[in-house]
């Protein structure tokens, strides 16, 4: 019996694509054996035959000439005058059997599908066939089937795509229960690759990691990239902590571009999606208003699968930007089946800060050891409960307010309710989902609401023409998303406010004056740097509303069984409408003569893509298989932004533009960029995959882009890739315990353009003077820019042992990025602040490891271990004419990222103490350390980790499953601006020493080399070396970023079908979910070293960020 799983698999795939239809058959044979006739029909149609070779009459020869004939006519002709009979099943399977006398016995049964995480569910359409016959049926929605067999000792063959087929000998039984196990994914799974082309994973010559819906929804995060941590090898994520739906910086295989984009492409259903976080990429420690990246808009529940392509080879066909890899998301489609499949899910997650700053609780408000009622510091007296008249005018006892930081935060919550409907017949399938997300951040007054609507319709219009349509509408409303750094006055104050300050006193944050203005209740003189934190969150309001429409229409025409053409059009359009309302009495609005301020910021982004793809897929002969894709596309991007600032308000707290003092487009003289930007990329591309005996594969791709952002002479660039993959286990005779051994290698060359309008100077008119000011462009442009190029090589091994109970995959890669388009600082006397150059050779090399093992597997219990590991080494081989690049950011004494030849990207240099040759600190006349402000004199470390790793243990016992993910980030540093702030204000625990007795700075000498005997007070010392001194000593505030954390734990109980019986509910599960639960190790001082100021390249610096949170909750899923 040559019933191979492969044929069945292919058959099902094709059947699904084409639907059940009366396909017309061509058959042209001359005196051919019957087997040839069957093969010919298989090749030229979507039908697949299941039969036993032995039953075919050897002497039967057929001469036929059918054109566009009916299948039954052809089959009747082919099988005439034989003892054979055939039966056409659903899914285009044709079962051939020899005619035999019939004794009918009814066998009933139930089939459960068991997925990799051990969850069991019934499924309609599982095929049950009496072995050796055409007799078969499929299961219904509850997994039940009834089959009349001809032989009480028959064997049933139960099969379903993606699951291991099973043969069950009846041995006289009339009732059977069968569990089908999911096929180990790494082996036979199909992977969605570039341009939406589906390929068998075995044929890929590069690393591709697949995640299913469960992998990205288990943790119930709004932004699915949060769930990739520890599950994907070679990934590095930094979170902005800007409340619900905030952005993540994702970097695969290290940073390639010094000042450009290092984040991967985001591809959804074959089309690029805008993933810009709309936050300033080059942030100083003021941080930025994170507005959520594109991927955070994708509803996790709609995701069918995610393929993570960490390397350039994998993404080469996507063209520009592919050097950073790609995240390829496939969303759900409707499924064929009876009735409507309904899934309802509901989750409630809660969050609290997982880590707090280490604050002292001994000394109260004041300076110099004295209580000072309007001081911002905690250099006051020891808090012993003494009575003092404080800033409120009341006489209260001076006592530690140990929780005045902690209690400011609320318990955040996130309620996600989703319903998904799926229905379809052979011709048309529909998927609809609606998801509502209601979330509250831990910062007071920070809320997040989102509604996602998704409609997907796939229709087989004719036997050859199919259409796939998607409409995705997202409405999002975020109130008061916090700044990611010091721009958030609430947090700057909160981190540094006096330790004796009662939160209950400052909660009353305003007084209404007779003239309608408000006065802020604040304990110190007005300051542009600090405010009452409650005032900041309730009186400096910021609302951002996003409307996003993602539409896709794709038409596919099957010209011949081998050749198809697809035309596709997609649009990703979104508008962001933001309003900032600052009430009168806001301290930092010094630029506005009026009281308060009002800013309207409207922005729209449109990514419009049109492409055609021609696909040719043919078995050349028994050995060779050829797959060719060729296409062309136009991608157009349009960005528009209008900002209107009232420059103050005439009547207080009436937020309308017509109440503005003087309308102006600027915010604090910050001019974003051109108000209208348009870019376009035109491309042609082709790929060819040649397979030999399904064990050796050669991959070739080529693409040419024409990019509007480059000079006309340099705007065209070609990039090729080549790869080879060999399934050694199929080619050679290997010991039995090796179930799979694969070797692969690939090489790719990809290019990239730059941003809009980077070639010419652009001077802009702005308000000011008596008729406007002209602001000259401060960037020296380069009219002859060349495209960036990245060369990438990778090679890997995949190994499966013991029937793939152990599976491992290792990849080594090396990429070199040249001609980088960099915007770098230049000596100001040149007349410019920046210039744009093509330069450098940045090399990244490293390894990625993936391992999956099932050490224990019994009938009821299964233990699965999944391990990921990524190590990257970066080297700056050349910077062209530069040996050291000017700092990436505007110069900061605390710490700067400096790129130098021979170094590695991400090196941070900080200010430091001036020391003599013996390492002793040299002090000034006042006994305070002398500070070296030139940061290039002190190398602090690199912000990139040496390696990252994650380990997931999944235990399944009957209907319970427990999954625990622990990940580690090893190496790297982070400089804490928060700590520099806190020591200056005397709130950090570090400042407890020597509070009451002046001391001599340890290990120090005077300038003349003599012993230092000048005493300093703790306050003068810490103010001098912290932020307050103006030149904070970064050396003191540098921490290792190494940490190990309990990233995710989920406990799931799936109701067994037995319990549900034939009830209305077909499946139900409930999960307890915990994310980011605690640190097993953290070397940073009271903060999460993975917190990022923004998604740009300026990493490794932390400043008064929202604390990272611990999330926990419950997730219920019901299927009807």
């Amino acid at each position, binding site marked *: 019996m040559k019933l191979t799983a492969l044929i069945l698999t292919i058959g099902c795939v094709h059947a699904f694509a084409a639907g059940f239809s009366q396909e017309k058959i061509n058959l042209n044979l001359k005196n051919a054996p019957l087997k040839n006739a069957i093969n010919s029909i298989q090749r030229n149609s979507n039908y697949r035959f299941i039969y036993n070779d032995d039953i075919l009459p050897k002497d039967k020869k057929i001469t036929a000439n059918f054109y566009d004939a009916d299948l039954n006519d052809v089959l009747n002709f082919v099988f005439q005058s034989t003892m054979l009979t055939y039966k056409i099943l659903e899914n285009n399977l044709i079962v051939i059997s020899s005619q035999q006398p019939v004794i009918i016995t009814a066998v009933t049964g139930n089939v459960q599908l068991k997925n990799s995480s051990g969850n069991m569910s019934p499924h309609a359409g599982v095929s049950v066939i009496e072995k050796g016959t055409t007799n078969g049926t499929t299961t219904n929605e509850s997994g039940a089937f009834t089959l009349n067999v001809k032989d009480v000792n028959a064997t049933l063959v139960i099969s379903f795509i993606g699951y291991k087929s099973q043969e069950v000998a009846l041995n006289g039984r009339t009732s059977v229960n069968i569990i089908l196990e999911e096929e180990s994914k790494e082996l036979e799974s199909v992977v969605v690759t570039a341009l939406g082309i589906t390929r068998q994973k075995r044929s890929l010559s590069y690393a591709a990691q697949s995640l299913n819906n469960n992998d990205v929804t288990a943790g119930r995060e709004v932004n699915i990239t949060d769930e990739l941590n520890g599950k994907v090898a070679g990934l590095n994520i930094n979170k902005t902590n800007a409340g619900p739906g905030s952005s993540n910086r994702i970097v695969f295989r290290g940073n390639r571009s010094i000042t450009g984009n290092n984040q991967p492409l985001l591809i959804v259903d074959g089309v690029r999606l805008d993933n810009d976080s709309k936050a300033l990429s080059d942030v100083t420690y003021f941080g930025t208003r994170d507005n959520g990246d594109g991927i955070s808009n994708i509803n996790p529940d709609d995701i069918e699968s995610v393929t993570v392509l960490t390397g350039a080879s994998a993404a080469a066909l996507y063209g520009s930007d592919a050097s950073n890899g790609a995240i390829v998301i496939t969303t759900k489609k409707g499924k064929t089946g009876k009735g409507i499949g309904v899934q309802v899910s509901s989750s409630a997650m809660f969050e609290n800060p997982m880590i707090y700053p280490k604050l002292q609780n001994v000394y109260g408000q004041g300076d110099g050891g004295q209580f000072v009622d309007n001081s911002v510091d905690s250099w006051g007296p020891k808090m012993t409960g003494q009575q003092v008249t404080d800033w409120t005018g009341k006489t209260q006892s001076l006592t530690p307010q140990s929780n005045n930081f902690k209690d400011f935060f609320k318990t955040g919550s996130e309620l996600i309710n989703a319903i998904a409907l799926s229905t379809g017949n052979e011709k048309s399938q529909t998927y609809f989902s609606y998801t509502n997300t209601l979330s509250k951040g831990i910062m007071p007054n920070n809320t997040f609401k989102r509604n996602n609507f998704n409609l997907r319709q796939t229709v087989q219009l004719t036997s050859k023409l199919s259409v796939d349509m998607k409409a995705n509408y997202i409405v999002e409303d975020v109130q008061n998303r916090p700044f990611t750094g010091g721009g958030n006055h609430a947090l700057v104050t909160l981190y540094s406010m006096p330790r004796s300050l009662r939160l209950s006193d400052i909660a009353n944050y305003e007084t209404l004056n007779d003239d309608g203005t408000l006065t802020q209740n604040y304990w110190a*003189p007005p300051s542009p740097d600090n405010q009452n934190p409650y005032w900041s969150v309730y009186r400096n309001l910021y609302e951002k509303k996003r409307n996003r429409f993602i539409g896709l229409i794709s038409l596919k025409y099957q010209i011949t069984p081998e050749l198809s053409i697809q035309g596709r059009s997609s649009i990703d359009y979104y508008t962001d409408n933001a309003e900032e309302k600052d009430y009168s009495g806001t301290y930092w609005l010094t630029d506005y*003569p009026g009281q308060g301020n009002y800013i309207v910021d409207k922005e729209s982004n449109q990514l419009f893509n049109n492409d055609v793809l021609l696909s040719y897929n043919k078995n050349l002969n028994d050995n060779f298989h050829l797959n060719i894709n060729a296409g062309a596309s136009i991608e157009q991007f349009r960005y528009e932004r209008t900002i209107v600032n009232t420059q103050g308000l005439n009547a207080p707290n009436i937020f309308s533009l017509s109440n503005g003092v003087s309308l*102006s487009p600027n915010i604090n003289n910050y001019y974003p960029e051109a108000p209208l930007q348009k870019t376009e990329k035109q491309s042609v591309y082709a790929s060819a995959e040649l397979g030999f005996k399904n064990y050796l594969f050669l991959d070739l791709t080529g693409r040419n882009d024409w990019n509007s952002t480059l000079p006309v002479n340099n705007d065209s660039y070609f990039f090729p890739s080549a790869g080879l993959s060999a399934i050694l286990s199929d080619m050679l005779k290997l010991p039995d315990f090796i179930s799979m051994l694969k070797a692969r290698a690939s090489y790719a060359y990809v290019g990239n353009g730059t941003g809009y309008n980077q070639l010419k100077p652009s001077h802009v008119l702005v308000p000011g003077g008596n008729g406007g*000011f002209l602001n000259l462009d401060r960037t020296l442009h380069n009219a002859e820019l060349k495209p960036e190029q990245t060369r990438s090589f990778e090679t890997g091994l995949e190994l499966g042992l013991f029937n793939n109970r152990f599976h491992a995959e290792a990849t080594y890669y090396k990429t070199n990025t040249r001609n980088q388009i960099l915007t770098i600082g230049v000596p100001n006397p*040149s007349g410019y602040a920046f210039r744009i150059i093509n330069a450098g050779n940045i090399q990244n090399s490293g390894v990625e490891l993936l391992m999956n093992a099932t050490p224990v597997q019994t009938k009821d219990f299964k233990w699965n271990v999944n391990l990921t590991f990524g190590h990257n080494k970066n080297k700056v081989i050349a910077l062209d004419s530069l040996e050291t690049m000017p700092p990436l950011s505007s110069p900061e004494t605390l710490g700067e990222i400096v790129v130098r030849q021979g170094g590695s990207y991400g090196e941070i240099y900080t200010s430091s103490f001036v020391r003599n040759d013996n390492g002793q600190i040299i002090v000034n006349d006042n006994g305070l350390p002398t500070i070296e402000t030139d940061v290039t004199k002190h190398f602090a470390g690199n912000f990139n980790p040496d390696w990252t790793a994650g380990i997931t243990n999944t235990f399944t016992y009957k209907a319970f499953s427990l999954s625990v993910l622990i990940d580690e980030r090893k190496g790297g540093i982070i400089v804490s601006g928060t700590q520099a702030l806190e020591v200056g204000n005397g709130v950090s625990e570090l400042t407890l020493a020597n509070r009451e007795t002046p001391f001599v700075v340890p290990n120090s000498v005077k300038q003349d080399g003599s012993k230092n005997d000048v005493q300093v007070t703790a306050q003068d010392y810490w103010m001098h070396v912290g932020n307050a001194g103006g030149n904070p000593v970064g050396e003191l505030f540098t921490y290792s970023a190494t940490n190990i954390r309990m990233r995710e734990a989920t406990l799931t109980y799936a109701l067994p079908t037995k319990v549900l019986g034939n009830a209305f509910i077909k499946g139900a599960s409930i999960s307890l979910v915990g994310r980011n639960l605690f640190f097993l190790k953290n070397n940073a001082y009271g903060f999460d070293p993975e917190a990022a100021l923004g998604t740009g390249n300026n990493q490794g610096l932390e400043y008064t960020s929202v604390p990272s949170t611990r999330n926990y909750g419950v997730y219920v899923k019901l299927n009807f």
Partner: protein
Amino acid sequence: MRTKFLIPIYILILACGCTKKFDDLNTDPTSFTSLTPAIIPQAFAKAEYQGIYGDPGIYELARALFPDYWCQFYADGGGAPSDRYVIVQDWIISQWNSVYTITVPTLKQVIAATEGTDVGENGIARIWDVYIWHYQTDFYGPVPYFHAGNGDLNIPYDSQQDIYHDLFKVLDTAVNELKTLDVSIKPYGDNDLIFHGDISKWLNFANTLRLRLAMRISYVEPDLAKQEAEKAVAAGVMTSNDDNAMMDVQTASPNGLSLMSPWEGFRMSASMESYLKGYTDPRLQLYYAPAVSDGEYHGLRNGLTATQLTDPLNKLDNTSNIGDKWNEGDAATNKLTVMYSSEAYFLRAEGAVNGWSMGGTAKDLYEDGIKTSMQQWNITDNTEINNYINGTSKPIALNDFLNSPAVANIPVAFAADAATQRQQIATQKWIALFPDGIEGWAELRRTGYPKLYPVANSDNPDVPKDSIMSRFTFLDYEYQTNGKAVQQTGIPLLNGPDKASTHVWWDVK
């Protein structure tokens, strides 16, 4: 059915052929790639406003936090380290890039675009260029000058001597250009925020600027100084408050000092208190505001530590803020100071003491300087002014935190000996210059006057607390980006180490 698929293919084929439109697509239609005649006035206006650091952000970082403290117009009530002589790199970088990446390139382009075609615009831009550059070199000493703004990446430093010599030449060129013009021509019109295109006022300003530059080099190149000073006075300098150079402000380009006045950084210095109270100077009430606590005027010693500032006497409520003229609400109307006519009289008075031909006696010019300053502040009662001019009272001792003795022992009444006269002229000029601390600091360095209290603490290891700051050191960012030029041309031209105690070229007294 098949034709449907041909449509997208057809579109693609059509589109692929036309990448020529890329150039248009990639150009922002709302911006300018070069200075067209229509936008030259707006460019010049920007150079004027940026040139005196008008905007609050840059006013604070370039003026208030450094020269204004170092000449003790204010003391800081919040403990800013710059008041203890610390050059905070993250702050001063803004001054450096404001000059070199905004003001200088803008003026350079305006001068190039008007060369030979718009004589008036060209001449005025050159005068303003001189004003910018003398500020710049006075801060640091040697700075990139001749090769600045050319787009080079290694920009050599030039000696202050060469720069000053060239500034005189540029003034010659500018004055010669303007002299040929009919005064009815109004270059830049109202876009000129200082004189609205009034050529005669620009000529007065240029001559006064020449006089200022001449006096600056009077100790290091006395002959050239005399020649230039006499040339300036002969050509006509500013003489009345109508000639004052004041810059228009408005909501979008406000007076930065006014907007910052509510902050804690602008307490009357103890030195000012000692002088103004000692002389019963009527400008005291105009320059500063009474302390909130007792309605009296109290100064603050410069250079206090945060701990010292906690003493009740030093608290904000007990010290005087900057005066009501700099009310936050008037930021869009209170004009910015560029140069006062009173300064011209004090410069001439010093020239007369030097024996130069200044069109008057030292005493008359000294007294005219005081009178002009008083009148500028609407103090018009001649008796009051004359009483002040003839006053013999001296600065007083203070009942402050450090029990400061009298800061100096000279009266207002003009002395007979040249040495005292010089001190008196410098002291009165210092009072009259308020709030232009850049000039105040420069003249403090050149003359050594007025006598000021030492700072209470210096956190700058190179500058002891009883010394004054002599210059800004070369910036860390310059060492990082233009290091070769700093090492090979900047430091050798300095005649000393790159320290804040090293004197600039003209500071030889």
